[in-house]
């Protein structure tokens, strides 16, 4: 029997998800023994034409990481969707929009200006930016278009499963591969990780009080952090209470608060709103002014609570206020 064919692809991502696959270490040899990798641009020299040459559904599974924010990425994932029986959104960016999804607080024009006009490393006066179409003596040249709004993979194509995390923890990748190879996958749409909150398996759980009362929210880089006590109880913005378990809490073990990369459990629709709700409730005062002062310690609510999930949120992005409302 021939081995199942597998593809891996990246869109708007940092490359960390690719690194996570490499982090399987010897495990990757088992994978290679069990499947045929027929497309993996970061590691193997296959071209788009190789994918086009596959029959529809010929790939048993395709892992796609990264958010979708350009016409090219969109075309590629539509192509891969046709060729694959199962598509797995791999990592926070594909699942929820991820860090690139924070571009949804601004727009295409500002992103282009920042990259091609304002960055200090640019040669002075050089404001050349890529245009999507240009005519040269040999004919017309085209470049992909950058979208106004960054999207999650499932806002563009149908997705079968999700591997959460920035990047997905090796254990979860191994379990997912095991499930695929043995045909023991859960129902379509499942996030392939435990469906409980991170706090459940946190070493500091015992020191997390039932009723948290935070008098001051602190920023990690300005704080001497106790290595044993619950981080939220210390006033650090630890999002463990609203984040999915499954990473083994590496951040907390490194004495840093959880920023929520594994995303929400299945009971939550909008991660940022839920995180905001959980954190705000801990502000330790019943006096409105004092609440404002305490919560004022959270300097960037959008960046804090939607760090990995703005495109997947109910509002998806930032909008232009109406003339009357804009100040």
């Amino acid at each position, binding site marked *: 029997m021939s081995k199942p064919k597998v593809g891996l692809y990246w869109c708007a991502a940092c490359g960390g998800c690719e690194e996570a696959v490499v982090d399987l270490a010897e495990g990757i040899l088992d994978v290679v023994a069990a499947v045929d990798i027929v497309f993996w641009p970061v590691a193997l020299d296959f071209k788009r034409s190789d994918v086009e040459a596959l029959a529809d559904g010929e790939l048993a599974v395709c892992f796609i990481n990264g958010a979708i924010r350009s016409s090219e990425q969109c075309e590629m994932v539509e192509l891969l969707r046709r060729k694959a029986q199962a598509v797995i959104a791999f990592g926070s960016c594909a699942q929820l929009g991820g860090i690139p999804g924070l571009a949804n607080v601004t727009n295409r024009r500002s992103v282009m200006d920042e990259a091609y006009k304002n960055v200090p490393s640019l040669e002075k006066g050089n404001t050349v930016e890529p245009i999507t179409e240009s005519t040269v003596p040999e004919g017309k040249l085209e470049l992909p278009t950058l979208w106004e709004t960054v999207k999650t993979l499932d806002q563009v194509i149908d997705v079968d499963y999700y591997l959460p995390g920035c990047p997905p923890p090796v254990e979860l990748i191994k379990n997912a591969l095991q499930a695929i190879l043995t045909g023991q996958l859960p129902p379509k749409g499942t996030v392939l990780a435990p469906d409980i909150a991170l706090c459940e398996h946190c070493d500091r759980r015992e020191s997390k009080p039932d009723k948290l009362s935070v008098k001051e929210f602190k920023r990690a880089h300005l704080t001497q952090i106790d290595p044993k006590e619950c981080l939220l109880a210390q006033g650090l913005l630890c999002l463990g209470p609203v984040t999915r378990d499954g990473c083994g809490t590496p951040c907390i073990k490194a004495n840093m608060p959880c920023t929520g990369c594994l995303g929400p459990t299945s009971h939550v629709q909008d991660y940022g*709103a839920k995180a905001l709700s959980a954190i705000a409730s801990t502000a330790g005062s019943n006096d*409105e002014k004092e609440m404002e002062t305490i*919560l004022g310690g959270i300097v960037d609510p959008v960046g804090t609570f939607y760090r990995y999930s703005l495109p997947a*949120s*109910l*509002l998806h992005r930032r*909008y*232009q206020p*109406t003339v009357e409302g804009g100040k």
Partner: protein
Amino acid sequence: MSENTQKSDSFEPRIVAFFCNWCTYTAADLAGTARMTYAPNVRVVRIMCSGRLDPQFILAALRDGADGVLIGGCHPGDCHYQEGNYKALRRFILLKRMLASLGIEEGRVRLEWIAASEGEKVQRVINEMTETVRRLGPLRLEQRQMIPAEAHGSAHAAAAHGGNV
């Protein structure tokens, strides 16, 4: 001027109100039985306590066509469950800042403490809020401009994929 800033006389704001069972909902009932008239723009959802109001409900309402959201609870100290309205207030304070950063105008989400006996406060708040939202115009997120307004360039690829949403 784009569509979303136009305020034709025909625009009737749609406001979703989440009223707590013990105070504000009772007050709205009272306003009803006392035959007080107020703007018919509010759809009231009864919740047991303002502390039960998940911020997700507010975002979902705005996403799904509400032009504004009104939250009503018992006065501080009067919550049937003691602490619920303090929780609601903490969330509201932070949510207001987050919504402002996402370009949702301030007047669209409002929190008021209204006791069971304050029927006329229900009337006043609903009338005020309807006027505020009428002035702000329809929310219509899917038709809104990105921020800051796009100067030039092609957005056709984005448009092909559901535009700006």
